[in-house]
């Protein structure tokens, strides 16, 4: 699993690749929370287009980041779920918690609205 953050316009994009599970979730969470700190109220878009699988610990990391973002008045948006990860979101009901967009561009458009 690899995870990187970049600024793009009025948003920060966190791009993860690979499998987010018990082993890799701590690094994913650390990067997410760093992004929350650096965002200073800017929207955060999590690009999931290269994530193969996410387990409960990875989903929890997203939830923690969401709570912190919202407490600072910001937005955390999920973009480009792969079919497998979309299934995991639906099974775990995380699709009812997060705002998910089909593409990064769609999420960025929402971030700037």
């Amino acid at each position, binding site marked *: 699993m690899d995870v990187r953050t970049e600024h793009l316009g009025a948003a920060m994009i966190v791009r993860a690749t690979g499998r987010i599970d018990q082993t890799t979730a701590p690094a994913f969470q650390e990067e997410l929370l760093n992004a929350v700190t650096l965002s200073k109220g800017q929207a955060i878009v999590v690009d999931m287009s290269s994530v193969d699988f996410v*387990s*409960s610990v990875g*989903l929890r990391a997203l939830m923690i980041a969401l709570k912190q973002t919202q407490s600072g008045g910001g937005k955390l948006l999920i973009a480009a779920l792969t079919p*497998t990860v979309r*299934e*995991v979101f*639906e*099974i775990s009901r995380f699709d009812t*918690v997060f705002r998910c967009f089909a593409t990064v561009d769609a999420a960025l458009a929402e971030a700037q609205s």
Partner: protein
Amino acid sequence: MKATIWGCRGSLPVAMSAATVRDKVKSALRTANGRSFRNDAELERFITEELPWPVANSYGGNSSCVQIDTGSEEYVLCDLGSGLREFGAAAIARHGPGKPQIYNIFLSHIHWDHIMGFPFFPASYIPGNKIRIYSCHPDPKLAFTRQQSAPCFPVDFSVLAADIEFIAMQPGKPVQVAGATVRAIKQYHEGDSFGYRFEKDGKAIIYSTDSEHKQDNPEAAALFADFFRRADLVIFDAQYSLAETVSLKEDWGHSSNVAGVELCHMAQAKHLLLYHHEPAFNDEALHRIFLETIRYEQLARPDGQPPLKVSSAFDGMELNV
């Protein structure tokens, strides 16, 4: 060993409404589409093979009660929810009221939905029966006497005629009961709850309900994985979705289907049984969760690990291990 589910529902017993029954009948008649059946066998085949499971069946609505058949003459039960009433009636029907029996009961905890069946347990009113209630809580008797005293119930606990004994148990100190070895583990739930591992002849059944598993505690996960290790059956509290357990219902003391799959994978357990169903869910909703759990097991299964069997508990279900 064999596990029989007498009550699979969490928190509160529920009953199917007349409208729900009519909907099931309508759906079955629509599927039959005017077909006639020559005999009961054809009808049974149609019901089993052609009707969707939640149309032909129901998960049921009794609160927690599971029988563990160890092959002994003595009975072993987990929890005394409303499912106990039907177990008690079946036991009386089997033996008749005049033949004393021994009932060994393992309590997960003393919240109401787990003890509410006891005032309706016929064996407790009949002299000669022995009822041994194993619990890791400091004073479980208090909960029983409170629920069975005025103004809550007309028959006081003190007049019950059976020989009722409360036996203190501790995690890490196994007991031998009805030919099985039984171990306990402390679980995260308001007021504490305890799970049990029943072992006999190389087989193991886990009863673990009213237990919240947090994703930020790998040490606790490892502890439970050890407790569940290579179990033949894990009866697991899956009342909420994973999203609920980390948001609105965090610290409410229950777990999810996703957590159940992941812990069973860690433990290399053989069979996960979803249990302690949310009372707000109808048969279709519970069946959807069951099918989704099978899918999550496929997605999450570690490379090289054999498939984990997944089932969803219903009242009257019997599982041999």
